[in-house]
């Protein structure tokens, strides 16, 4: 029944200005796929730990195109403390008044999907693929906007690109956002995405990343959505030889969130760093599901993901490293560590290895535990009160993964700020 309604909204969602026939085809295929598959089910292995009821229990029609009054002051606290090329999307649509793309160097294209459809439709076309599953298929059918970044070969974009997704949808509604990032051979760029807002909206994003030979993309995603919000996102990355993709994800907002990062190491010497943290409390649930495929020899994966759960929060880590036949010289490390702070907090973790080549070095580890009593005692013996001692240890646990992510100083400080603001909200916070 719900799917029929989604289907009806798809019929309404065709933009007034029309769309190119290839896009209409993709939208139709996406809708057909979603109508056939429906929402992911718990019987599917990849979704067995994720409780999608908050999403499936009500209908989330696409957010209406009418502009929402969001002023610069609302968005300002979420901005980076350094110069950037800034795009703001409100309810999934580009908001020019809040954005400041600034002056771009030669060989860089940055803008909204709507603008790209006019100026660089090739970039948008490359963000759509056949056979997208469930939520990504629905996204293909219904996306209204997004951002596009293209860095040409040999070009370095010095200042970071900053994208703020702001949600204020009033009634339950969905913002389907499709993003595209391309870095040419030897090119370099940094993108910081922040999602935030108010209300019980659903943000459903798909981001398609390509990094050509020797290129490097750093991608930071800070998720601080409203307490009632739902946020699902898929990042699909394809890396050529010696290319590098560094991803850092902070998941600290929303009632239900899920981040799927799928990276294909397609050329020799490609490397990926997937670091992140989920910080959860109340009855939040977050799933972090990175999948790395080593399809070429001498590639490298470094993955460190930490989780802190308090109250009735539920964290899920589903990490997979696949090594294809012939991908010799693979070096992959995967680590997931979890901290449970309350008797009712819980975690499910499944770090999976699938190895079909023999000359590999692969390791993975997972731990679950609570705060170390000896460390707490040590701090208290030095005159620190129990509440502060607890916070210090939680901060140290989470800060570790931020420091290890290799972020530049202003961005690292910005991420630390998010961690501290989350800690302030902890029970017995300062």
């Amino acid at each position: 029944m719900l799917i029929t309604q989604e289907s009806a909204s798809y019929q309404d969602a065709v933009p007034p200005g029309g769309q190119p026939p290839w896009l209409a085809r993709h939208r139709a295929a996406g809708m057909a796929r979603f109508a056939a598959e429906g929402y992911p089910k718990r019987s599917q292995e990849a979704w067995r730990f994720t409780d999608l009821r908050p999403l499936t229990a009500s209908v989330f029609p696409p957010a209406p195109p009418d502009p929402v009054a969001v002023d610069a002051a609302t968005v300002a606290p979420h901005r980076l403390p350094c110069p950037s090329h800034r795009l703001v999307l409100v309810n999934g649509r580009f908001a020019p008044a809040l954005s400041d793309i600034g002056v771009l160097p030669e060989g860089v294209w940055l803008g909204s999907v709507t603008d790209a459809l006019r100026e660089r439709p090739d970039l948008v076309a490359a963000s759509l693929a056949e056979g997208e599953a469930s939520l990504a298929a629905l996204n293909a059918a219904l996306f209204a906007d997004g951002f596009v970044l293209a860095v040409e070969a040999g070009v370095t974009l010095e200042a970071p690109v900053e994208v703020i997704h702001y949600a204020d949808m009033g009634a339950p509604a969905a913002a389907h956002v499709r993003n595209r990032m391309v870095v040419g051979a030897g090119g370099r760029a940094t993108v910081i995405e922040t999602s935030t807002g108010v209300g019980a909206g659903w943000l459903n994003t798909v981001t398609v990343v390509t990094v050509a030979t020797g290129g490097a993309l750093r991608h930071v995603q800070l998720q601080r959505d409203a307490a009632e919000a739902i946020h699902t996102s898929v990042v699909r990355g394809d890396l050529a030889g010696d290319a590098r993709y560094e991803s850092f994800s902070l998941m600290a907002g929303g009632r239900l969130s899920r981040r799927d990062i799928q990276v294909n190491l397609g050329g020799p010497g490609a490397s990926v760093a997937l670091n992140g943290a989920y910080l959860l409390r109340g009855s939040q649930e977050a799933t972090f599901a990175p999948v790395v495929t080593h399809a070429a020899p001498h590639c490298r994966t470094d993955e460190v993901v930490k989780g802190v759960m308090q109250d009735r929060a539920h964290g899920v880590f589903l990490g997979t490293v696949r090594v294809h036949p012939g991908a010799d010289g693979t070096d992959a490390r995967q680590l997931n560590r979890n901290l449970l702070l309350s008797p009712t907090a819980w975690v499910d973790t499944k770090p999976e290895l699938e190895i079909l080549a023999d000359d590999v070095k692969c390791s993975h580890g997972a731990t679950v535990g609570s705060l170390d009593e000896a460390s707490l005692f040590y701090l208290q013996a030095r005159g620190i009160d129990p509440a502060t001692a607890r916070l210090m240890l939680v901060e140290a646990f989470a800060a570790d993964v931020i420091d290890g992510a290799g972020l530049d100083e202003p961005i690292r400080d910005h991420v630390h700020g998010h961690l501290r603001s989350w800690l302030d909200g902890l029970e017995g916070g300062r």
Partner: protein
Amino acid sequence: MSDLAMTERADAPPDTLDGLIKGTGDGYKYGFVTDIEADEAPPGLDEGTVRFISAKKGEPAWLLEWRLKAFHRWQRMAPPDWAKLNIAPIDYQASTYYSAPKANSGPKSLDEVDPELLKTYEKLGIPLGERAALAGVAVDAVFDSVSVATTYKDKLADLGIIFCSFGEAVREHPDLVRRYLGSVVPQGDNFFAALNSAVFSDGSFVYVPPGVRCPMELSTYFRINAAKSGQFERTLLIADKGAYVSYLEGCTAPQRDENQLHAAVVELVALEDAEIKYATVQNWYPGDENGKGGIYNFVTKRGACRGDRAKISWAQVETGSAITWKYPSCLLEGDGSVGAFYSVAITNNLQQADTGTKMIHIGRDTSSTIISKGISAGRGQNTYRGQVKVMPRAEGARNYTQCDSLLIGKKCGAHTVPYIEVRHPSAKVEHEATTSKISEDQMFYCQQRGLTQEDALSLIVNGFCKEVLKELPMEFAVEAQKLLAVSLEGSVG
């Protein structure tokens, strides 16, 4: 103890061991078929088959009902498809579900046992009579489906230990069987357990009374014999309060061209302060170099630590079978109970194994250890699949898991699928896994010291598995080491 050493001690030619290690080219060593007139059920499976088996075994009505309930469950179930296994569809109507060696009434002594059977045991090296005394092992030998002779029964009986065939237990100790049968693995637990519950033929039953320490290692041999007859063993082992028992299981099977299904169920119950050690060496026919033939080993093994401070330990060396689907598990219900799982699994040629364990922490202060070593060679696929679950009341639960994979060759695969589900903050759960290959340096070093390539491989592999092998009873460990070498024959060079 497994059949390998038994053969040695019995009438095996002196070159057996050399033959094992160097490879005689005879193919599977135990590939012979004994020609005995079988009393078979017609192929196919329906309610009539279940009734036939139950009647044939002279079972009480409650057990028939229990079987039928399982059968009806099974009819509504589908085979599991989540394992990383490629299984050709199985025609359950083509199998024979009961085959018994012809016997008028149960044999009262060795003289009454069919000489054909005795010869088979000789070939298998099972020590009956004096040999049993020499080996110090009580053997409840299962030939296809009906137990034929049980040794050492009297000695065990003096201590109050019951060690007999399942069929006998149903006749002699119906209360115990009724109380514990299906209490760890319910009829509808999974597709293969349901099938077993409906058509199980025979198996072993052990009961160790309170405070008794079983003075010897109990051992049972399973042997699949009649062509196309799936083997559906049922083992039920109960250690009452403060009891201790160590149980060994080893397997060989005749060579065949058609896949044979083996769906056993093993249930262990450990009451307060009891300890059960269960060791398996599995060496069934794995199929030939092209993957033709070989046993399907789809087994449900589970132990319940039902009392406080109970301990259950599983140790397994899995080298045989075309396909292995097996997850010996522990339900840690009692406070302070302890579970352990030690495993070596080898896949060579086209063998596939999806094996691991489940540790379900239910009581307070429960702890579990998992050590798994997977070795893949040839085109073998080896998956460790394990679940560690800490329930909301399992305060102070502790788990340590280590699973290592060793790859030999370019065409094999090693997969690790751990599930860690924690519902209590005081739990401490650690999981570590590594994957590596045998390095050329290691091989070169050994060969430079005069070892042959095969000996070097065997040395390195045994070192890799050491942590698990040391958990096996001594005689078992010695044979397991040799078995590792045999299983990896031809995988290098």
